[in-house]
């Protein structure tokens, strides 16, 4: 990377970040919240104590897993917007698996539960992959539809077949499943906190994804299919097959995220368990430049944002939907920045403008002096 390119990239990223922050500040202003206070709370609040830090990490685990899956799919040329639904399917499957064999030993039950979650998510994602590969159905539309369908399936299961029998007895009717057997809980890493072994799992997954994409032949095929589908076909790579594989992997990661949330955090299936991780994961992946090395810090950063948003909801009466606004603005900013960064013509124009600007200002300076 030569000096010019670095200067240009830096300028773009700075401009884009400032614009995003400004837009969100405008919205905050409109609802009567102080932008500075809100930003301060969001960015510093969560990290103020050890418990806060572990909470951030707890949130970042599903973000990391989902983000990794989305990075795989985006790099393979298929846009997975369905992580939300894939998480929910993962939760259903893993809860069912754990409740089906409550007396099995941990060494069997835990892996089986996680696998069940991953498999369910993979299948749900695979549907969209197959639809695109075979029938050229736009994957953004199909995954979004599958999200809505999964949400209904999830509600149905939670209020019906998977409803905790004690809820029926006590009549409280909270839609949630039975508590899972203790043998399936993910180990607590630090006593007194909620941080669990899923963190290690997610970090290992990040390394594995990096190796997959850049070190294996499978990863080569998938990246080729994503970066140059036509050329890949001409070279004998069955692109359609790898679209499906990519969606299976992406869905699998999201389903695994659901299973991890169930076994590590909530210990039962509850309403709102996916709580927007599916969409946040997209932003995490984009922010991390679709590379595990970037997605890990990006996931932690978004963990901070999510906890921070919770805190502002309580303290500054900023509604929770604000997170969506933030995510939307970030996506629009990233996508605009990307197009500037990739556009050699824009880079030229930038430097020409810069040259003219500095020439004009030196002239003005000289004029003022004389």
């Amino acid at each position, binding site marked *: 990377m030569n000096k010019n390119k670095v200067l240009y990239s830096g300028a773009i990223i700075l401009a884009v970040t400032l614009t995003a922050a400004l837009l969100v500040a405008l*919205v905050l202003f*409109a*609802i*009567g919240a102080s932008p500075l206070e809100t930003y301060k709370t969001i960015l510093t609040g969560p990290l103020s104590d050890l418990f806060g830090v572990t909470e951030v990490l707890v949130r970042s685990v599903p973000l990391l897993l989902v983000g990794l899956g989305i990075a795989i799919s985006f790099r393979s040329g298929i*846009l997975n*917007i369905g992580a939300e639904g894939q998480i929910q399917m993962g939760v259903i499957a893993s809860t069912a698996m754990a409740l089906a064999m409550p007396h099995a030993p941990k060494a069997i039950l835990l892996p089986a539960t996680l696998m069940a979650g991953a498999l369910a998510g993979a299948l749900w994602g695979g549907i969209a992959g197959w*639809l695109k590969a075979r*029938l*050229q*159905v*736009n994957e*953004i*539309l*199909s995954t*979004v*539809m*599958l999200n*809505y*369908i999964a949400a*209904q*399936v999830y*509600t*149905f299961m939670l209020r*019906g077949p998977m409803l905790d029998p004690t809820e029926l007895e006590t009549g409280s009717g909270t839609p949630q499943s039975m508590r899972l057997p203790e043998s399936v809980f993910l180990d607590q890493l630090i006593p007194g906190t909620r941080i669990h072994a899923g963190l290690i799992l997610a970090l290992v997954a990040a390394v594995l994804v990096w190796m997959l994409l850049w070190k294996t032949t499978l990863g080569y095929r998938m990246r080729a299919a994503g970066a140059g589908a036509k050329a890949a076909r001409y070279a004998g790579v069955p692109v359609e097959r790898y679209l499906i594989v990519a969606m299976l992997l992406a869905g699998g990661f999201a389903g695994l995220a659901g299973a991890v949330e169930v076994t590590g955090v909530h210990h039962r299936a509850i309403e709102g368990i996916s709580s927007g991780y599916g*969409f946040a994961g*997209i932003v995490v992946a*984009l922010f991390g430049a679709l590379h595990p090395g970037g997605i890990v810090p990006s996931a932690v950063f978004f963990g901070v944002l999510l906890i921070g948003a919770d805190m502002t909801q309580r303290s500054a*009466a*900023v*509604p929770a*939907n*604000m*997170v*969506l*606004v*933030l*995510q*939307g*603005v*970030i*996506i*629009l900013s990233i*996508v*605009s920045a*990307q*197009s*500037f960064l990739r*556009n050699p*013509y824009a880079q030229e124009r930038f430097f020409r403008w810069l040259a003219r600007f500095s020439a004009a200002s030196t002239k003005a300076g000289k004029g003022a002096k004389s």
Partner: protein
Amino acid sequence: MSGGLMLYNVLCLAVPFSVALLLAALGENFNQRAGVFNLGCDGIMCMGAFLGFMVPFTLKGGPWAAYGNLLGIGAALAVGAAMGVVFALVTVTFRASQGIAGIGLQMLGWGLAGTLFRHFVGGVTGVEGMAAIAIPGLSRIPFLGGVLFNHNALTYTALLLVPACWFLLYKTPWGLKVRAVGTHPRAADTMGIHVDRIRYQALMLGGAMAGLAGAYLSLCQAKMFSDDLVAGRGFIAVALVYFGRWSPLGILGGALLFSIAQSFQLSMQVWGIKFPYEFAVMLPYVLVIVVLAVARKARQLGPTDLGKPYNREMRF
């Protein structure tokens, strides 16, 4: 219950149910014909729904109350157009990827509508909405009268917009430019047409119509606002445009198909047919997937340059 009566009931419900989809899809059609697909349609509908509810709600009981509905619709149109311009800025001027940008806009619209609602209103409240206007004479026609001629002004407008949009697209100079820009933008450019400008105009119009669709949902159909009001209809509208082969008439057919499915679902509950509630709610979304899977690409007739940004300076 007789079959004829069942059909009548379903159809009576179907027409008003189709309006939101129809308006949004007709607007999206202009976007796509010009070569841009705006998945943020759903988010624009959310904002339109919020304003369509919020304005009459705030003006209730005050001096301007009588104009509440009209002003609400106006606000929805304006905000919709503004969001269309934002999308145009990102996808046309910045030439960013349209799919992801659309999702970003959708999140923004959805979140913003919910945030503003929670802040300014909070609870579950309703508005009066718009009254049905029975067209004298025509509404007496047995069967058809009830189905077609006993709706509110916005519904009639939506139905009239179908031939209006057709005319705009195929018989006016602007429509010609839009179609050229979406199929062969460089050819249009060499003929002196401002490709970017036409795309901005199309996106503004499409955004305004999506905003109007949202206002219809809150003002006329549900007569209230909530986070799940739009429930993905914006995405369904985008799918409808493909399904309708980028023609207003095809889009009308598609919108009716979906609304019939939806009214069928509602009617089933009323008639006491046992069917799990969640599966019934699922139907429209499943239908979208089926429809997309089955619709064969008739790309020759439609905008073949859909989704690709235009860069005059690019060597060709």
